[in-house]
């Protein structure tokens, strides 16, 4: 089977500092991948480079089409969704308006409708007409994911969804992601918290110093104390 996303020799820079140094990875349709690594190894940058927020060098193929260098809205139109690190909800707009903005094209409705979405997440339904700025951290996280789903993506890149969340809410968010995966959407999950990553992912990539240093299934990963010690702990 063709991979849905295929990254080959991806490089990226911030000014003069070389952050990604030849990243390779692939994701199959419907697959859930976890991307692990220490702080600052370039996981978020990988996500940003794929999404066109950081200028990439190298090849990024999505559904067989080269997307490196495309504007981000074009990438989105091809079916790539992105939930960035900082969530970026539109705080002054209502929850519903936020969801409306997730729709790329009013004429061709996607798999999910706003109403369905709200059914799926009763927390959001209760606050549908509140400004999104007042939501709690966990709810904001749910809203961003729903908003991305409104665009009917085939692959979502989610960056650190549980960062800064209270332990209890971390759990909720994990469930949400699992739910989305069940609907057949492929997911690239950038995560620090192993318990969640290993629970949902089908495969794990470990990143170090701007490149991939290990990949395998969660079970294989649990065996590899050495990988864990070398690349995830200092």
């Amino acid at each position, binding site marked *: 089977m063709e991979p849905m996303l295929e990254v080959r020799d991806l490089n990226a*820079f911030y000014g*003069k*500092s*070389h*952050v990604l140094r030849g990243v390779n990875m692939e994701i199959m349709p419907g697959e859930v991948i976890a991307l692990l690594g220490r702080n600052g190894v370039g996981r978020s940058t990988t996500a940003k480079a794929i999404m066109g927020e950081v200028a990439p060098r190298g090849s990024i193929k999505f559904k067989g089409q080269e997307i490196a260098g495309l504007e981000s809205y074009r990438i989105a139109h091809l079916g790539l969704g992105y939930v960035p690190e900082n969530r970026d909800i539109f705080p002054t707009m209502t929850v519903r308006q936020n969801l409306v903005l997730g729709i790329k094209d009013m004429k061709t409705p996607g798999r999910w409708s706003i109403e369905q979405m709200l059914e799926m997440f009763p927390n959001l339904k209760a606050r549908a007409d509140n400004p999104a700025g007042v939501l709690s951290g966990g709810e904001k996280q749910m809203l961003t994911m729903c908003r991305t789903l409104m665009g009917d993506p085939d692959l979502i890149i989610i960056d650190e969804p549980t960062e800064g969340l209270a332990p209890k809410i971390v759990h909720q968010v994990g469930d949400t992601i699992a739910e989305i995966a069940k609907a057949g959407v492929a997911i690239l999950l950038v995560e620090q918290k192993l318990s969640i990553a290993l629970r949902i992912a089908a495969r794990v990539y470990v990143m170090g110093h701007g490149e991939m240093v290990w990949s395998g299934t969660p079970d294989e990963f649990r065996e590899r104390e050495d990988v864990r010690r070398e690349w995830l702990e200092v």
Partner: protein
Amino acid sequence: MSDMATENFANLAPSNAQKFRMRVLPFVLFAAVAVLIPLFGPSRSAYSLLNAIGINIVFALSYNMLLGRAGLLSFGHAVYFGLGGYAALHAMGMIENADGGFWGSVPVFAMPLVGFAGGALAGAVIGWPSCRRAGTAFAMISLGVAELIAAMGFMFGSIFGGEEGISGDRMNGPEVFGLSLGPIGEVYWFIAFWTVLAALLIFAFTRTPLGRMSEATRDNPQRVEFVGYDPTRVRYLVFIAAGGFAGLAGGMSAVNYEIFTPEALSLLPSGFVLIMTYVGGARYFAGPVLGAIVLTYMQSNLSDFTEAWLLYLGLLFITIVMYAPNGLAGIVAGLWNGTRATGMAYLKTWAARVVAIAIAMVGVIVLVEVAVRKSNGYGEVFEPFGLHLTPGSPLTWALVIVPLIVGLGLLRHLARDEQEAGA
């Protein structure tokens, strides 16, 4: 990567020699140049230009205390220049009419100090409400205040003199350094003295605790509060100082031109000082000096060569904003660092770029000059190097289009090369 950065900066702590080179030497050179100029026997018009440059250097440096250092974008800095100038002119009036007494013993040479007091006082009054806010709000308040004061200038005749303005005479009172201040050559010494002194003082200001905190306030006002400073107070004090130095420049101008009109308070000169400072490079201390020299020259001499000098000025400004946000000083510094780091190769691409820009400029200049002459309707024809360029002739259009295409094409090519080569 971070390790590399650390290495690069590890020996950043400036040595004493470096400190001398960076902080003392430029001033010594600056003063030396100022002293040497008269040896070349400048003409009267050269002196008028030099005097105007000196005034503008101080004015722009004072503006940069706000824009570059404190991060305050003001559209009304001429207010302090103007009020300082008016204060000085009124003082000159007192000196003229004094027989003995206090004013009888005040030399006109000291007028910049009166200007400083006037500008600082105005800064203290106006800064009080406006410094409570930074950013766009500050910019808008400064614009409103400038318009307000300029309008008032036309209302209070006894202070501002209405349309006529206020005139004075610099040849009164005691002489200092044996300067009668009559001939323009003597005024030059006066201007040079105050320019160098003010530049030194403004530089010294950047090294004081207040000067440092003003930069900190620009970068992060919130944090400043949590290390015990009141950002409003910091801004306010810097504002007063900047107003004072602007007033000092106004005092210099009062002695040089012996007249001030309410227009001097208005938006136009405020805009001009903004352009001078920005074009020169607000990030660098020497930027405004450079900007003042180049722009004053353009203003007084380029305007003799071409009526469209303001158009060129606008083009220059926009180009700087778009491609060289650190201004002329930034370009010079970049050239210096680039050459030191990568040697001749850098110099070569740089030279290539200059050539490309020059080629493109030919097209722009021909277009503008031919158009200006046509629009004047005096039937004048643009005749550079004996060419006869009328709006209708194909040669004109060739000279517009070909250089533009070649120049811009070359620039594009260079930009692409650079993108491919560099990181």
